[in-house]
């Protein structure tokens, strides 16, 4: 096993994709899954519950400095940035928005890339802005695996196309291919 975490970023049109991914992971998925998805700032509840419904692994909004565990998904809470701190802990932050977003996909990806280096899998999904582009580049630059959902399949292509413009990613995958890639991780 060469990896330590999977991080997924998405915005408009990504909810169904994330749901399908969580629904297809084995119960004993060997890695923590970090989810940084754009969401309404003031709506605190409902999202994690909706994602949990069909998920095979527990989905939680972490508390600050929570330890990341394999086989669990961590959803960035509303109105917080979610970072990966060294020593495998989550760190939350209320710093300024980045690309009008808090949580910012770029920040989550960059901090995860710094913490896990080549042992990180970063996936950018459907979305309507360019958040995540720099984050995915950082994952790639640090030797991690950079995956982008096939723009032809995305409900909104902006985010994936922007990521593809800046980074020579490892894989452009459909949802099914992303799922089978993750299922093979043992």
């Amino acid at each position, binding site marked *: 096993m060469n990896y330590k975490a999977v991080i997924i970023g998405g915005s408009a049109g990504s909810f169904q994709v994330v749901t399908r991914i969580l629904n297809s992971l084995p119960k004993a998925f060997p890695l923590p899954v970090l989810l940084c998805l754009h969401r309404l*700032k*003031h709506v*605190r509840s409902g999202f994690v519950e909706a994602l949990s419904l069909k998920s095979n692994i527990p989905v939680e*909004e*972490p*508390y*600050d*400095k929570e330890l990341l565990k394999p086989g669990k998904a961590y959803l960035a*809470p509303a*109105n*917080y940035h979610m*970072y*990966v*701190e*060294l020593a495998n*802990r989550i*760190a*939350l*932050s*209320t*710093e*300024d928005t980045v690309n009008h977003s*808090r949580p910012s996909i770029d*920040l989550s990806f960059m*901090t995860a890339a*710094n913490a896990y280096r080549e042992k990180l899998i970063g996936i950018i999904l459907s979305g309507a802005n360019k958040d995540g582009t720099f984050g995915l580049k950082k994952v790639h630059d640090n030797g991690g695996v950079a995956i982008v959902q096939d723009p032809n399949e995305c409900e909104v292509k902006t985010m994936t196309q922007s990521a593809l413009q800046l980074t020579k990613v490892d894989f452009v995958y459909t949802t099914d291919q992303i799922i089978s890639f993750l299922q093979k991780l043992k």
Partner: protein
Amino acid sequence: MTELGIVDIREIIRTIKSVHNYDFSNYALTSLKQRLERLMSINTIGSTDSLIKKISNEPAFIDTILFELAVPSTEMFRDPSLWRWLREVYFPEVTEKNIGKFKIWLPVCVSGGELYSLAILLNEMGLSDKVQIIATYTSDKIVEILKSGCYDLKKVDVSHENYKRGNGCKELSAYYKTDKNCIVRETSLIANVEFRKLNINFDLAPQNIKLILFRNSLIYYNPTQQEKILRMLYGSLSASGYLVLGIRERISGISTSREFEIVNEVESVYRKRMLN
């Protein structure tokens, strides 16, 4: 923007400690890294070496560091349901007991999001005279901004929404005027606030506090320092005093979780537990 490595950050922390005796070594590393990078970018400092030279050679620069390392509030009346709880549950309960004038402490004021929100709430509840607000801050530049009433224009819309959701009695715009790049809040709201400069290590914290509003500040420290700060806040609270943390902050340390009991799970409100 220059990207700092761990070695750079440690070197910067060491320099600040040796020159100014401020200890940032227990700050959460990822956010400290970001704040330092931001500080360097804003002040056009191109390398770790130049930053270190500046810290060593320009004593007054420490205030800029303390200012830039503090994270401003995201908006006024953040988490409107907490403000509703304060308005509809907490303050009515406290004032019913008729305890006389009591103290509320805001340990880390940066942009005054919490300070002015609280002052507005107390004003609307007719409690301004019954409460002594103590606002502590770390940098001179911060207190200047707090006293000027200035607040980031781009945080105003969401603050309006929050205020309404928090059952505010008027329109938030009744409390400020719009300037070019900021709003200027009504400074008479904070006329009776006691401002105190506080060392970042929380030395000489105020005592006998009924309510501490300390939301989304613990997140900037590592678990060791979080425990220390919580223990210090425990010491500052009066018997059965309340501590409000950010909604994703929890008291989880072994000793501190015995010292506080949770009163409102959703809003992260704790009560000081009396230990026998």
